[in-house]
């Protein structure tokens, strides 16, 4: 079966949609990279530029939403086309949320740059590397409609969750040792949480890819490596 529609302009409209998504994905990747780099290099100027770049991501999300409405109204897509159009809308939503988290990381990088260096900050670029790879892989998986690659991203979120959990425990200990660490540690906690949330959105995108390619949801319990919602660090941890 050929992949082209009989009506060529229909293909052009679907291509425009996936093109917009690719551009949006690229911008979110850049925003995330800038935010992580701003934290590790204490670069307030880069952080500020990164925060400003978020507006373009929001514009693209709006544009994608309009394109989806247009295709739905004019073409009444069905089957794989319908799944692609709806999937694009969901992916755009996940990308927009991811960019918001990256923006928040960048904002906190501005604050952190004015505080003394905290030792646990070294964990941020490591988490950043993992989440950037996840985002890149899941966007590649979408472009190639590669379900195996999407599922690999989905499985990788556990690694990120574990890194977040371990940083959480380290930071709580650190704050107990010296209350002067609390401001910086709190920013780092939120930064780590934001990165961890971006990983969750990458797994959402992986699930969407699975559905839009196969027509059935990706079912099964996703591995969870993050127990921070339940974790406590006792006073003995401060020894």
């Amino acid at each position, binding site marked *: *079966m050929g*992949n082209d529609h009989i009506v060529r302009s229909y293909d052009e409209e679907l291509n425009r949609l996936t093109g917009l998504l690719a551009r949006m994905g690229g911008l979110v990747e850049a925003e995330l990279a800038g935010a992580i780099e701003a934290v590790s290099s204490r670069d307030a100027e880069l952080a500020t530029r990164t925060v400003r770049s978020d507006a373009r991501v929001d514009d693209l999300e709006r544009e994608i939403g309009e394109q989806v409405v247009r295709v739905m109204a004019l073409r009444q897509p*069905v*089957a794989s086309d319908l*799944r692609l159009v709806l999937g694009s809308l969901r992916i755009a939503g996940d990308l927009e949320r991811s960019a918001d988290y990256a923006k928040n990381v960048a904002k906190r990088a501005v604050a952190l740059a004015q505080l003394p260096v905290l030792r646990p900050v070294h964990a941020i670029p490591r988490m950043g590397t993992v989440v950037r790879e996840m985002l890149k892989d899941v966007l590649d998986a979408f472009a190639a409609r590669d379900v195996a690659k999407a599922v690999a991203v989905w499985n990788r979120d556990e690694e990120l969750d574990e890194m977040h959990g371990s940083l959480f425990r380290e930071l709580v200990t650190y704050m107990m040792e010296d209350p002067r660490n609390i401001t910086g540690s709190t920013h780092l906690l939120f930064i780590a949480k934001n990165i961890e949330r971006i990983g969750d959105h990458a797994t959402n995108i992986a699930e969407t890819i699975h559905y839009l390619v196969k027509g059935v949801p*990706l079912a099964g319990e996703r*591995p969870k490596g993050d127990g921070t919602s339940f974790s406590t660090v006792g006073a003995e941890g401060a020894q």
Partner: protein
Amino acid sequence: MDTTIIETQMPSMLGAAQDAGIPVKIEARGVNVHYGAKHALKSVDIDIRANQVTAFIGPSGCGKSTFLRCLNRMNDTIESCRVAGSLRIDGDDIYDPTLDVVQLRARVGMVFQKPNPFPKSIYDNVAYGPRIHGLFNSKADLDAVVEKALRGAALWDEVKDRLGESGTGLSGGQQQRLCIARAIAVGPEVILMDEPCSALDPIATAHVETLIDELRANFTIVIVTHSMQQAARVSQRTAFFHLGTLVEEDDTATIFTNPRDERTQGYITGRYG
């Protein structure tokens, strides 16, 4: 950690799950149709469920209308047409040589693409079938049959004051509903519709589609349509025909969200098949 991924069909979209308990009205097994040397239908198996709307879709010449016409032996009139295989309505063999075809067509009514009212009054159009089949005892009886059929076709309120006027003077949509009234006046069990809305404007189409949905309570409906949106709107089951083969038959929602066969996918999304 290895995570097991289970791919599941969404139960609500599985045709088989929905069919449980719905009786079969018409059962076709190994139906083959030839027009002379042309093999028009190849070994069609399908269960048409009672009180559901089943839509037949597919490109021109795929055999969908041919199959529809087998269901009330409309193909009998075509000299070169040969039908083989088993077709049963409630277990009765539709092609039993001793079967009275006129009786069969009272059980399995038909509505055509172009509204084709007789050049008679609205009343006489609807009364035509009941008169042939002697389905009434008195004038009052016949009046009641006509009114019931016109109400059933959602036409009564529009024509009750001019039953004596010619059926051909109605609008296209009204004419088509008149033809539906004529079909249901003889109390059929199954109504076949061959592109019933293709000559109608969108408003008239919406009225007929609403009517089809209401008729489903009392009749089993099989509709051939070139409009896939119409199939999606009015039917519970959709069957896709291609080159004389029944490619796929499933719950309509499944066909339009996740069809199993590549050919179905190609056709309904508007790609080359």
